C-alpha cells in the first residue's frame, strides 16, 4: 500500500476537513435561503416602484385607517402580552409546581394552532353565542366584531412569543445576584425590579418586539373573530387581502408600507440592543 494513501492518513484528512469546514460552501448554502427570504419582499417593493401613480392609493381613507388601526392595536396587544405575560414567564422560569408542564405547553399552543382555529375558539368563548356570551351580554359588553376583538385576537396569537422569550430571559439571570440583593436588604419585589428585570431586559424587549410583529401580521383570527369593518377592525393584513381582490396596486402599496415599518422596527431594536451595555455583552 502506498504511504500517502494509508487509511490512517485518509481518516486524518477527513477529520481535518470536518474540523475546518469550508467557508465558501457555507456561504453559498446560506445565500440560497437568504435569496429565497428576500426575493418576495424585494418583489413587492419593485412592483410598487413600477406601479403607475402608487401614491394615489395612500390618499384613500381605507389605507390610512388600516395603517392607524394596525399600529394602535398591535402596540396595545404587545403591551398587554408583556404586562400579563411577565408573571406567567417568571412563574414558569422560577418555580416547580404541579401541572407546570401542562401550563408550559398551553402557553405555546397558540403558536402552533392555525389562526383560523384561534379565531373560532375566541368566537366560541367570547362571541354572542359563546360560553361567556350570555354573561357578557348581561354586563352590556359585546366583544366580537369590535376593535377590542382585534386586540384579543392579536394578543392570543402573539403572547406566546413574549412569554417564550421572557421565560428564557428570567432563566438566564444568575440566582446568586438575587440572593446577594436580598442580603443587601432588598425585598423580593425590589430585587425583581432592580436586578431581575434589568438583566432580563434584552429578552423582555425582544419578546415584546416579536409579539408586536406577530400582532401586526395577524390575519386569520382577526377576520373570524373581529370581522372586516373599515376603521374599526380592518387592519393592514385584512386591507391588503381585500384590496388584492380588486386593486392590485393598492394592495402592493399597503404591503410595501407594512414591510418598511416592520423592518424599521426590527432593525432599530437590534441596533439599540447592540449598543446597550448588556446587549453587547450577550452578543
Amino acid at each position, binding site marked *: 500500500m502506498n504511504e500517502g494513501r494509508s487509511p490512517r492518513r485518509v481518516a486524518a484528512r477527513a477529520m481535518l476537513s470536518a474540523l475546518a469546514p469550508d467557508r465558501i460552501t457555507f456561504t453559498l448554502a446560506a445565500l440560497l435561503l437568504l435569496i429565497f427570504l428576500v426575493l418576495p419582499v424585494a418583489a413587492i417593493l419593485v412592483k410598487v416602484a413600477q406601479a403607475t401613480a402608487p401614491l394615489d392609493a395612500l390618499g384613500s381613507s381605507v389605507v390610512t385607517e388600516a395603517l392607524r388601526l394596525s399600529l394602535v392595536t398591535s402596540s396595545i396587544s404587545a403591551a398587554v402580552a408583556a404586562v400579563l405575560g411577565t408573571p406567567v414567564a417568571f412563574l414558569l422560569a422560577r418555580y416547580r409546581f404541579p401541572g407546570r408542564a401542562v401550563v408550559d405547553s398551553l402557553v405555546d399552543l397558540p403558536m402552533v394552532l392555525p389562526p383560523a382555529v384561534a379565531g373560532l375558539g375566541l368566537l366560541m368563548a367570547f362571541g354572542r353565542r359563546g360560553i361567556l356570551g350570555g354573561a357578557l351580554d348581561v354586563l352590556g359588553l359585546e366583544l366580537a366584531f369590535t376593535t377590542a376583538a382585534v386586540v384579543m385576537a392579536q394578543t392570543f396569537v402573539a403572547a406566546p412569543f413574549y412569554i417564550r422569550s421572557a421565560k428564557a430571559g428570567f432563566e438566564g439571570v444568575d440566582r*446568586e*445576584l438575587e*440572593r446577594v*440583593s*436580598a*442580603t*443587601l*436588604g432588598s425585598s423580593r419585589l425590589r430585587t425583581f425590579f432592580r*436586578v431581575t428585570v434589568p438583566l432580563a431586559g434584552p429578552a423582555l424587549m425582544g419578546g415584546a418586539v416579536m409579539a408586536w410583529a406577530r400582532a401586526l401580521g395577524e390575519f386569520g383570527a382577526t377576520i373570524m373573530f373581529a370581522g372586516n369593518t373599515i376603521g374599526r377592525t380592518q387592519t393592514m393584513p385584512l386591507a391588503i387581502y381585500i384590496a388584492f381582490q380588486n386593486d392590485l396596486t393598492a394592495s402592493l402599496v399597503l404591503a410595501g408600507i407594512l414591510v418598511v415599518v416592520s423592518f424599521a422596527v426590527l432593525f432599530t431594536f437590534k441596533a439599540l440592543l447592540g449598543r446597550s451595555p*448588556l446587549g453587547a455583552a450577550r452578543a
Partner: protein
Amino acid sequence: MRRRLDGFELDVAFGADEGRVVLFGPSGAGKSLTLQAITGVMRPDAGRVELNGRLLFDSASGVNLPPQARRLGYVPQSYALFPHLTVEQNVAYGIQRLNAAERRALVQETVVLVGLQGLERRRPRELSGGQQQRVALARALASRPELLVLDEPFSNIDTGLRGTLRRELLDLQARSGITTLVVTHDLDDAFFLGSRIVVIDRGRVLQAGSREDIFYRPATRRVAEFVGTRNILRARVLESDSQRLLLDWQGRVLEADPLPLSGGQDVDICIRPTQVMIVRPDRLPGLPPPENPFCGTVVQEALQAEAYVLRFRLADSPACRTGRAAPYDLEIELPDYVYFRLGLDRKKDATISIHRSAMHVIPVAEVAGARCCPG
C-alpha cells in the same frame, strides 16, 4: 443546625466570637449549605442561628428572618456583582435608605477603604478578578453588616495574586473590625485568614478550635489529613505511665509525652516535617543522647523555595511493602542552609531524632458524630 437534603444531612454547631472564623473542609462537606442557612437563603429543618444575641433563625420558636433583615454582608464565590450597574452603583446598592448626600459620602469612603478609587464608573466586566472581589467586599461592607461572610474568596484568583489579596483581606478586616466568616477548601487560605478554624466534613464538624489547635493538635486522623499533616504513623501503646508513653511503631520503640492511654491501644502519631531533627555528625559526645534516634537514608529530595523536603527511609524499613515508587517512612523539611551545613548534599545517610514534644498522639477510636466547640 440541621438540614436533610437529598440524603445529605448537615449537622453542625459552632460559634464565632470576635475576629476571623474559617469554615474549612473538602468540597461537598456542607460548607455552602451552612452558609446558605446563615444568610437565610435556605431554611434548615431544625436548629438555631444567632448573631450578636439577635435570633436569625430558630426552629423551636418559629423565628426565620428573611435574608434582607439579617444584616449580613455576603460575598459569594462568583462575587455576583450586578453587571448592569457601575462600581459606584454596586457599592451603593445596599444603602438606598440613606439620603443622596450620605450615600455618596459612604460610597466614597468604602471605595477608598478597599482601594478602588478611579474605577467608580466602570462596569464589573471591565475589572480584573481582584478588583471585582474588592467591589464585592465594598458592596458588602457599605451597609455596615454585623457579620461578613465570604464564600471561597480566592478560588477565582490566580495563584500569584492570592497572597497579596489574602494580606489585603486580613488588613481590611482589621481596619473595619467586622467579624468575618470565611468558607474555604484551601488550606493556605484557612490558616492565613482564620484565627479560629472549624473543620467540617460530610455535614459534620470534625473539630473546632484555634488555628494552632487545628494545626498542631488535630483531634482525629481525618482532621490531620485535611490539614496536610504529612507524617501520620499508626502505632500501638506499649507502656503508659505518668512520665512517658512508649509506643510500638513497626517494631521500633518511640517515646512520647505522657497521655492517659492503656497498653495495646492503637494510636496515630502526627509529626510535622519541620520537627524531625537530623543529628549532627559532629555532635559533641558530652551532650544528653538525642530522643528517639533512628538511622536511615534520604531516598528522595525536592527543593521548595528555601527549604528542602526530604523523604527519609529508616534502616531495615518495612516501608518497601507498600509498593511506593520511592518507599519512605518520614517526610522531613529543613531550611536550605541547614541542609548544606549537615552535608546532606554529599552524604545521604543520617541519624534523625524525633523530639518527644514533636509527636502529637491521637487515640484511634475516632469520635463519631459532631463535636461542639466550647466557644
